[in-house]
């Protein structure tokens, strides 16, 4: 194991922080990580069970709730398995040590002679007839995990099982696992009447008339916050819609601007993030490109939802937030209520791809439920709310310049990233950053975003440093704060656009000097894992790439190591362009270190590829004034089933390497591969995403 004591043990050192044992002897592991629809809870459970040497159904897992599990921070940045999984392995190992000690006493042997497999205790590999979990009463959960734990080495793992299917999948198909589905006696239903932007103020709304709309039980009004509480979700939604149409709000006027052009042309002072030497040399030839992407919606299929219940001066909220402890603190700040009076419990939401409306809707529910103490209030945002009120993925412009020396080696790389903020999470900068907090009588606007520090992978500048050996590198960043649109973390943050820009330039240079794209990249790589991934994608696709292409078709390559420290991913796609671009085939090779659940990793990589193809080809948030004009999916098309390519993902497994997370490694390389394939198919470079028919025509006319 390459992790030293995992970081969560600083705040939660004891076994009882991580393990609960019921009076009947059932073992539950407690994780501060949440399931975001990516199978991480199954992977976490697998790691704990594997460490104990029992089957996965012998134990259970409970995730993120402020009254029960450790605080492991946000479930974000693809760190669930790396840190959350390591923590559970350590905790399980400590428990195993205690149980095997007790078993060794019973057997009159040394504990070192014992190990477990399929729940049975083996002595020097021979059966003892003893079940490990029969020794659960020997557990002393007051011990410190780090004093006892000796987590297994790679060679000792996965003796009982190797991979298990997602535990929760069937329930998702025929059952009711989502917070949207929660029921409680006497439950009421809320719907917010959101102002157009976080800076807008309510001017007029006939609250008396709203109160008597059908089914309405309460109207909650605090300055610019208005919420309708009704006896059914339909009544709440219809009343809120009625109010939305009749209310008037005052909004700071915004001159009509194209946000992407505005961001790209910003001349704000650039901060230098990385500077390894002088990039302004002049021996050789400079190449340059600029790639832009618009604002992008999270667009979860299930809108944000939450349930809240006030009992006395205490409130419980059921939420699909990425960080229940952060949400608790943000609510505490917004309401001036002590944290210990707030309980946040994670529940399943629909797919989470970053900081979406989960926290905002939780606070909406808290505000509305306060008016009806003792009754649960469920709030499910409308599709319009989901588009208007949730944070968006940031619009960006990445300018990349590279200097090619006379020997065809790159000697300098200069990157400037202009971007809207990539983080505005609850609590960041000391403010709640909950949408409704900006509407209350004591309004709290979000602090100015400081972006994600480089140590956590960076935000705007994520993956702005190429994964290649390119001589001196300078990365500068301009955060553009002057647009009224709310943006925050969306899967892979700046990496998507930055990898596209870098990989576009790598291809442009290779093409210009007549070198195959693989060769040019390999020439600039000296680490073996990067090389392996690229060589493998080359060999995996060689045969299909030899098939003659029809007119308007092409292949493209994209590669990056996520954050420079995470998983490696190379993607090769084939496109056909006939007015619109269609990706017909997509291949990926990934190395995420130890793949805890290999099929889960493939599923994540596939999902990232599909989502990235959708971003690259189709998606742009339409804006006007201070808000989006998109009210429904009709205004924001995403990739359909007919447009989905055939996919193939291969893993390079490294059982003894640190597991690195897979949910965000494929977006950048896939976007880059698509852009490069379009370049190959058409002979022109489309630099402004998405690559729609219109964008192609614009690029031709450039």
């Amino acid at each position, binding site marked *: 194991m390459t992790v030293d004591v995992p970081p969560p043990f600083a705040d939660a050192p004891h076994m009882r922080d991580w393990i609960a044992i019921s009076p009947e002897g059932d073992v539950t592991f407690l994780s501060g990580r949440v399931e975001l629809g990516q199978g991480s809870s199954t992977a976490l459970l697998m790691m704990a069970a594997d460490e104990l040497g029992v089957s996965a159904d012998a134990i259970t897992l409970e995730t993120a709730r402020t009254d029960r599990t450790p605080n492991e921070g946000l479930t974000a940045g693809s760190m669930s398995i790396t840190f959350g999984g390591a923590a559970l392995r350590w905790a399980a190992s400590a428990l195993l040590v205690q149980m095997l000690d007790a078993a060794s006493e019973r057997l009159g042997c040394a504990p070192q002679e014992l190990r477990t497999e399929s729940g049975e205790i083996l002595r020097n590999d021979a059966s003892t007839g003893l079940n490990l979990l029969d020794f659960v009463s020997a557990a002393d959960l007051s011990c410190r995990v780090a004093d006892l734990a000796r987590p297994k080495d790679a060679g000792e793992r996965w003796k009982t099982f190797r991979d298990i299917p997602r535990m929760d999948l069937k329930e*998702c198909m025929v059952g009711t696992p989502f917070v949207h589905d929660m029921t409680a006696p006497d439950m009421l239903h809320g719907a917010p009447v959101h102002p157009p932007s976080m800076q807008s103020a309510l001017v007029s709304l006939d609250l008396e008339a709203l109160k008597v709309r059908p089914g309405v039980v309460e109207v909650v009004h605090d300055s610019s916050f208005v919420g309708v509480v009704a006896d059914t979700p339909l009544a709440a939604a219809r009343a809120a819609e009625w109010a939305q149409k009749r209310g008037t709000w005052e909004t700071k006027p915004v001159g009509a601007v194209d946000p992407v052009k505005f961001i790209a042309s910003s001349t704000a002072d650039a901060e230098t993030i990385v500077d390894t030497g002088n990039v302004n040399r002049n021996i050789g030839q400079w190449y340059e490109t600029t790639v832009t992407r618009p604002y992008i919606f999270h667009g979860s299929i299930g809108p944000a939802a939450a349930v809240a219940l006030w009992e006395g001066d205490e409130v419980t909220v059921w939420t699909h937030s990425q960080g229940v402890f952060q949400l608790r603190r943000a609510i505490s700040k917004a309401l001036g209520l002590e944290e210990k009076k707030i309980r946040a419990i994670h529940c399943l939401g629909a797919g989470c791809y970053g900081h979406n409306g989960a926290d905002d809707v939780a606070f909406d529910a808290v505000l509305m439920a306060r008016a009806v103490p003792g009754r649960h209030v469920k709030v499910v945002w409308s599709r319009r709310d989901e588009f208007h009120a949730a944070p968006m993925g940031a619009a960006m412009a990445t300018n990349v310049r590279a200097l090619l020396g006379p020997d065809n080696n790159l000697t300098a790389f200069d990157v400037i990233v202009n971007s809207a903020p990539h983080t505005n999470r609850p609590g960041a900068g000391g403010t709640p950053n909950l949408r409704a907090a900006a509407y209350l009588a004591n309004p709290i606007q979000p602090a100015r975003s400081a972006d994600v520090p480089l140590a956590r992978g960076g935000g705007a500048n994520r993956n702005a440093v190429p994964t290649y050996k390119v001589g001196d590198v300078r990365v500068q960043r301009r955060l553009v704060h002057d647009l009224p649109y709310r943006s925050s973390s969306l899967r892979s943050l700046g990496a998507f656009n930055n990898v596209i820009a870098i990989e576009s330039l790598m291809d442009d240079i290779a093409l210009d000097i007549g070198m195959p794209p693989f060769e040019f990249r390999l020439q600039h790589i000296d680490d073996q894992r990067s090389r392996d991934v690229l060589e493998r994608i080359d060999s995996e696709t060689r045969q299909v790439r030899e098939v003659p292409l029809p007119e308007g078709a092409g292949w493209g390559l994209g590669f990056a190591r996520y954050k420079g420290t995470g998983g490696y991913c190379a993607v090769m796609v084939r496109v056909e362009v006939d007015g619109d671009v269609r990706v017909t085939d997509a291949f990926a090779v990934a190395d995420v270190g130890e793949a805890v659940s290999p099929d889960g990793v493939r599923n994540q990589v596939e999902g990232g590829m599909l989502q990235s193809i959708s971003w690259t080809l189709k998606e742009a948030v339409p804006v006007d004034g201070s808000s989006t004009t998109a009210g429904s999916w009709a205004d924001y098309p995403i990739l359909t*089933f007919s447009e*989905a390519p055939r996919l193939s993902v291969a893993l390079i497994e490294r059982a003894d390497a640190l597991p690195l997370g897979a949910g965000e490694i494929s977006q950048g390389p896939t976007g880059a591969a698509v852009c490069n394939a379009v370049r190959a198919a058409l002979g022109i470079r489309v630099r402004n995403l998405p690559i729609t028919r219109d964008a192609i025509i614009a690029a031709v006319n450039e």
Partner: protein
Amino acid sequence: MSELQEVSCRINGKMRAFVVDPTMPLLHVLREVLDLKATRFGCGEGTCGACTVIVDGQAVMSCDLPAGQVDGRRIETAEGLDGDPPHPLVAAFLENQAGQCGYCLPGILMAARALLEGEPTPPSRARIAEALDGNLCRCGTHARILDAIEDAAKHMNRGPLA
């Protein structure tokens, strides 16, 4: 709000009768009146497919269908796919691990079921995809979902329907 109306229909093989506002979308009747919550709300305006159910053999978006129009009809929802063993579609989705967040799946399963039950032989991948074009999946599980439906079709469409 219109006058309440009595509606009776067969849901997953069982006769159900209820008194509702006939303009209430079927989705709300299923979820809130009958507590059949496996059918999901995604947009409420017929643009995402999360709420797809089968009415008299046709896949329809239940958020868009007034309850007054289902009187006397046959409705199938995702709950009807459960069982021991589960429906071949559910089995194929599990086998292929065709899901990430899974929120879109009940609607997709119903759209797929309506397609497969209406075809004498396994439909092509392109035809399956086309039948799902009203269903959105944001997690990008498309390829696995198509694989799973192709697999299920091999079991379900072996010849003329019994």
